[in-house]
């Protein structure tokens, strides 16, 4: 008969092993980022010789150089502008549509809704080819507004789906009360439905913000002129031109990654929610 102490030890050993495994993977997740930051603080000569995670001196001037001379200040502001405009656009456009799909009656409602849902399921690899042609025709290529409209479209289907699912479950009483008080439909959407939908809107905002900030290929084909480029495209362009200036490249990468990591740490709850709800979406 094995004693209780035996089982206790066995459990402790097992738990230690499990922790070691989890911790090892966690370290591989974090380490490349620490290495990136460390390299961004080294000098050009040091980066090829000093393989320590701690730089010999803290060369924050690399960030100044990347921001000013490398143009990352400009690219950063571009990325902010695109992200904020696209997310604002998606929130307004998709919440209006989702509200209508959930609450209002009009002919062709189901067909239109299924059209959006179909777009979510049909993968169109290389859809950037006709988009390039289209934007050229509309004289919207190499413009901020062209990129913003394309990116709004990218986020529409999923956002409409998430919001409609929420509105479907929302009790109707408050809206009825507002209607009796003489509130218009647009007023009900704005002052009753939207405030109630805040938790879902947070998911929509966070997901679309990450998506736009990290987007690459549409920005690549849409922008020819450097002053319009967002960070992601600028990074690969920079890599092509300043192949050897690794400290500046690492500073640029840190500038690009940091806002995402901060937003992620603050909004983690909504991201987990979005991913687990996303599975049902498919």
């Amino acid at each position: 008969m094995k004693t209780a102490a035996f089982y206790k030890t066995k459990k402790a050993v097992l738990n230690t092993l499990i922790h070691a495994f989890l911790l090892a993977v966690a370290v591989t997740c974090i380490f490349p980022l620490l290495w990136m930051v460390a390299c961004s603080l080294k000098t050009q000569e040091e980066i090829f010789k000093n393989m320590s995670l701690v730089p010999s001196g803290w060369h924050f001037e690399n960030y100044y150089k990347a921001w000013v001379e490398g143009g990352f200040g400009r690219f950063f502001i571009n990325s902010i502008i695109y992200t904020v405009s696209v997310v604002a656009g998606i929130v307004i456009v998709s919440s209006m549509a989702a509200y209508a799909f959930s609450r209002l009656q009009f002919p062709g409602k189901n067909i239109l809704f299924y059209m959006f849902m179909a777009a979510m399921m049909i993968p169109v690899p290389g859809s950037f080819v006709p988009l390039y042609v289209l934007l050229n025709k509309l004289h919207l290529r190499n413009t901020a507004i062209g990129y913003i409209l394309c990116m709004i479209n990218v986020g529409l289907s999923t956002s409409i789906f998430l919001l409609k699912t929420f509105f479907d479950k929302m009790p109707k009483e408050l809206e009825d009360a507002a209607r009796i008080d003489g509130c218009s439909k647009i007023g009900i959407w704005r002052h009753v439905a939207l405030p109630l939908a805040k938790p879902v809107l947070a998911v929509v905002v966070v997901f679309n913000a990450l998506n736009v900030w990290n987007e690459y290929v549409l920005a690549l084909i849409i922008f020819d002129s450097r002053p319009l480029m967002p960070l992601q495209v600028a990074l690969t362009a920079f890599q092509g031109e300043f192949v050897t200036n690794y400290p500046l490249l690492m500073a640029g990468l840190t500038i690009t990654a940091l806002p995402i990591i901060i937003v992620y740490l603050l909004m983690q709850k909504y991201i987990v929610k979005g991913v687990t709800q996303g599975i049902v979406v498919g």
Partner: protein
Amino acid sequence: MRIKETLENYLFVLPAVTIFVIFYVIPFIWVFQLGMFDWDGILPTKIFVGLSNFKEILFDKVWWQSMGNAGYITLIALTFQNILAFLLAWACDREIRAKNFYRLIFFIPPVLSEVVVGLVWQWILDGNYGLLNYWLNGLGLHSLARNWLSDPQTALTAVAIVHSWKGFGWGFLIFLAGLQTIPRELYEAARVDGANAWQTFKNVTAPLMIPVAVIVAILTIIGTMQAFVLIIAMTRGGPAYHTEVPVLRILASMRGSSRFGYACAQGISFGVILMAVSFMQYKFSKKAKA
């Protein structure tokens, strides 16, 4: 009055539908149209060539090589990445402390952009000044050190592993959410019946997790087959097409050789394959819900 109300209701969906039609529906139709033309994207004249673009794809060696490469990366993602994701989720589900901490950390790579991940790893894997080779040399394993991303023997695997590093957090979150829906009473009952850890896993956990695993697998296939930005950042398809993938070929047909029609034809044939997988996913997720 009725008409006015209907029109008013349409106003709610008008912005969404307008953007959707212009930026999704029209380009979608154009893909099929352009796929049957020979066109450089600039000249006003397009030459109708019927299905010859599609015929050319059949004999396009680099295209099929890129398909094979994407298939290889997908295979690694399906096995290595998803098994890792499941093991981590399983470990985290055992009510150990710090579960939230690990959940926080494991999802950091997925929220980073492919460009950032690709460029950081490219620097780590650099043949001359990379950290990996420095460590290998430090451990006396000089024979293992190599130019990971320009060596045809290792480039594709290196890319696949970095892809898995970036992606396992998705599978982890979905598996963990799935594991947490399993009622604790089932484990309790298994324990009372004297089942050991392996028997509990085989008879309780595994059967309940199969639908989740199927969904993760299909999402992995669709996501990985279309991955290419990471590869732009790491190898740009090289050395000598060893890390080329289909979407990178479509981009090259369009930007490199200015063959818009051919690029669209490539997109269609690739899309049809992905559609089949997507359809399977739809079927399975419906089954899983029922």
